[in-house]
């Protein structure tokens, strides 16, 4: 159980409305714990970036409360401990990557030696003297991460950090984010890419139409795995399995049996059916992918809207 002091980000009934017609964030309650990598999932336009902007004090909430690192968003004391990359990283196009970071280091009150260290960390040292306008999308993303790391922040907020990256760049960025999450740093990662979130995060919040519709670990969101069995005669197989003490439910789906049971019971079930003379042609564990869960959560929103 986490106490209030362990919450790095806490929002209560956070709402952002643009004019009368656009409700970007709706009554959002969000809690990000110290030291975790929190995935903030949602389709495009769900309100992820607006939420992140409110956490950073760039956008004022219409109503609700926000506390980031125990203080109001945008307060200098808080910002000094936060590194952020919101949407596309933005830099002075005519300045080199290094000079861009020097400007930010001076603003952040960080020693300029740190610039070389973060450039090295994101492997941009060899292009650091080139104008940032000449950087590829991937290099800009890396420069954005370097800028976010300048303050060696307690809290790192990254908005779609793999946007525009090729598969190799995405894999590299994922590894990088995973490494950033180690050592007590809190990372809030916004994304609409399931693979990215699944591989990197400790907990996930799913936002739809500005509201949090699900929250938990990836495992919790994906739900309990079931055993899928193809056996003949199916009715007799279902009766036998149902009689086992640990089995919660057996249902027939598309000619298969979905058995809700601890998947470690698979060998025992197989033995039981074979010894009873039932032909077992398939037996495997099946769990919803995060993508399916996400689509289910967001699709139901589309259907109701």
């Amino acid at each position, binding site marked *: 159980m986490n106490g209030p002091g362990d919450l790095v980000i806490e929002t209560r009934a956070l709402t952002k409305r643009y004019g009368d017609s656009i409700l970007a964030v709706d009554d959002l309650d969000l809690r990000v714990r110290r030291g975790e990598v929190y995935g903030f999932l949602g389709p495009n336009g769900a309100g992820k970036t607006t939420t992140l*902007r409110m956490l*950073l*004090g*760039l*956008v*004022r909430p219409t109503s609700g409360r926000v506390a980031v690192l125990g203080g109001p968003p*945008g*307060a*200098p004391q808080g*910002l*000094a401990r*936060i590194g*952020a990359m*919101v*949407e*596309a*990283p*933005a*830099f*002075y*196009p*005519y*300045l080199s990557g290094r*000079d861009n970071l*020097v*400007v*930010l280091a*001076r*603003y*952040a*009150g960080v020693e300029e030696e740190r610039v070389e260290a973060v450039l090295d960390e994101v492997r941009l040292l060899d292009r650091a003297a080139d104008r940032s306008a000449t950087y590829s999308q991937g290099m800009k993303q890396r420069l954005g991460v370097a*800028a976010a790391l300048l*303050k060696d922040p307690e809290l790192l907020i990254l908005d779609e950090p793999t946007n525009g990256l090729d598969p190799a760049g995405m894999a590299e960025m994922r590894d990088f984010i995973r490494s950033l999450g180690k050592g007590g740093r809190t990372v809030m990662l916004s994304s609409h890419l399931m693979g990215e979130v699944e591989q990197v995060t400790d907990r996930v919040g799913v936002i739809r139409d500005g509201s949090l519709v699900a929250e938990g670990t990836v495992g919790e969101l994906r739900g309990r795995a079931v055993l899928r069995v193809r056996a003949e005669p199916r009715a007799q197989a279902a009766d036998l399995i149902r009689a086992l003490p640990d089995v919660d439910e057996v249902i027939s789906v598309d000619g298969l049996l979905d058995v809700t049971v601890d998947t470690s019971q698979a060998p025992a079930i197989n033995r039981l059916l074979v010894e009873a003379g039932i032909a077992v042609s398939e037996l495997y564990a099946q769990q919803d992918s995060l993508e399916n869960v996400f689509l289910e959560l967001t699709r139901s929103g589309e259907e109701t809207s």
Partner: protein
Amino acid sequence: MTREVSAELLVLRKRAATWILLGIWTLLGVFFAYVVPYALDPEDSPGGLEQFFPESLAGTLLAGFPFFGGVFALMLGVFALGSEYGWGTLKTLFTQRPGRVRVLGAKLAALAIVLVPFVLTLFAAGAVASYVIAQIEDAPVNWPSAWLLVRAIAAGWLILAAWAALGVLLGVLTRGTSLAIGVGILYALVIEGLLSAFADSVSVLEPLTNVFLRANGYSIATALGALPQEIESNGPGSFSGPFVDSLQALAMLAAFIAGFAALAALLLRRRDVA
């Protein structure tokens, strides 16, 4: 604050637009203050041939600051803030340690510093031009007093600073550069220019034109040697008075700078950064 200002100076120093504006401003400043009038008919110019000699340096150059220099300073101010919206760098700066007003303060301070070489470069180029003309005319080279030069340089800086502050405000107001420059030039030419021209015949306009940047800038320029007849024939920047007291003009320009900066700070503090 020193670190933030040094960051902004780096941003301005490495920006091509700063150097391009400085180059054009210096070239055109000398061109219109010395080269063109001297080449056309120097005897017929309002100040006669003496206007082009070193002794008249302060007044001759200052006559170009309130309008012509103002437009350059306006562009510098617009670029300093307006471009940040286009590049999205404002949100990057606002997520660093200092608050929004401190970021604006750093930008204004850096801009104020950058305006110094703008004034000094033009005075240096003007000094060279006036010296060359004096040599050509075989006239004695008498330089204005150091005190007059210091006051003229300070006055030139103040005039440019007021316009630059207006540029900053317009950049924040329009969240960009193009519209801000358009509105700024429209204001300088149409609002200030036309109303000042009509003020002679429509007395009700006179109190209004007295608070214009143009009226106060030219009032300071004339107090330091610029010729009213020269200003009256200053093309789109022409102004025929009435001139206000120079102390009042100083106070008014300082108030403009403070007012524009305060308004820009208010807008920056209150508005969302997308």
